[in-house]
């Protein structure tokens, strides 16, 4: 999970505007159902949770399950009433959390 997540959202928006946010993160999403060449099960290792907050308030969150393919792409909409910072967090099965931030300004 060392790679930087890819995030796309507008740099600025009008007050009350609904914007689209796109995120893509690099992850193997090992389901736990597969076996290696020796026949031993490969342990599950997935991103199990994604959250997005805006100025500390939750905007969007979801639980991810093993059937989701590698490099999960998540897209959602959010309404922007004030300028501030979107905080994104992807939680791995091993407990590590990958985070990212994007600022957005209000159009004059």
């Amino acid at each position, binding site marked *: 999970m060392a*790679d930087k997540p*890819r995030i796309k959202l507008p740099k600025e928006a009008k007050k009350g505007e609904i914007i689209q946010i*796109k995120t*893509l993160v*690099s992850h193997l*999403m090992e389901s736990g159902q597969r076996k290696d060449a020796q026949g031993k099960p490969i342990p599950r290792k997935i991103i199990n949770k994604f959250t997005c907050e805006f100025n500390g308030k939750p905007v969007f969150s979801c639980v991810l399950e093993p059937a989701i*393919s*590698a*490099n999960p*792409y998540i897209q959602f909409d959010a309404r922007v009433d004030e300028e501030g910072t979107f905080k994104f967090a992807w939680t791995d099965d091993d407990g590590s959390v990958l985070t990212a931030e994007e600022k957005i300004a209000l159009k004059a």
Partner: protein
Amino acid sequence: MSIRYGSLAVLASAALALSAVATFGQEAERKGIPAPPGHVFKTIISGYQFRTKETRALQDDDLENPGFLAVERAADVWKTVDGGEGKSCMSCHGEAEKTMKGVGAAMPKWSEKLNKPVNLEQQINICRTEHMKAQPWAFKSKELTDMTTFVRFQSRGMPVAVKTDGPMSPWFEKGKEIYYTRVGQLDLACASCHEKNNGKFMRADFLSQGQTNGFPTYRLRDQRLVPLHERFEGCMFDVRGVPYKPLSDEFLALELYVAWRGIGLPVETPSVRN
């Protein structure tokens, strides 16, 4: 008035019939480029044109396209020092955006030193072992496929332009021979599917012309980038043959020949395919 309505009805039913045909045979939508004189195809069509609109959309958006994860990873590796010489790719080549432009579109290329053609993967490893004194990357490794994708990405949109004359011509002929040779228990040659039957629906999929302009390609099936020689291996395995080894002379000759079959197509790396 009644005559007018009658002819309108005929027109409407004709239009319906036409649209039914158009949705059934997707060929109508497949855009290609005219092939040069003496080429095997009249129109050269990228594999992109054979994919669903959802798969195309994934390739078209640089943020959604998962192949760009590899491009970004390799962009960092490009600047990272490795090996006994204390060099990175950047030490010799500078900014990849400038110096690597067009390089990937012209591979495989003749190497005077080795007296044979080399492809992009081989050239990267030659750089690593000779100039950086670093360990070569294994074929199919994430590192090698990432870097191959990154270098080829610098040629995105440029036409495939391999040289097939001069010392390359025996390799070209060898590749052609492999292309038309039936192999495996299913007794199929590359040409059986990709030349004679492209555009047809088979194994729940549309057969493409087998073009290489999008490689390494992000395959949704594998959920990762797949280099060209792995795809060659996969095809030979599917016809129940014994595949040649990746980076072998046979696959190198085939890579050259197949690149020529797609000459002029824009490089699409990193493309997205099934």
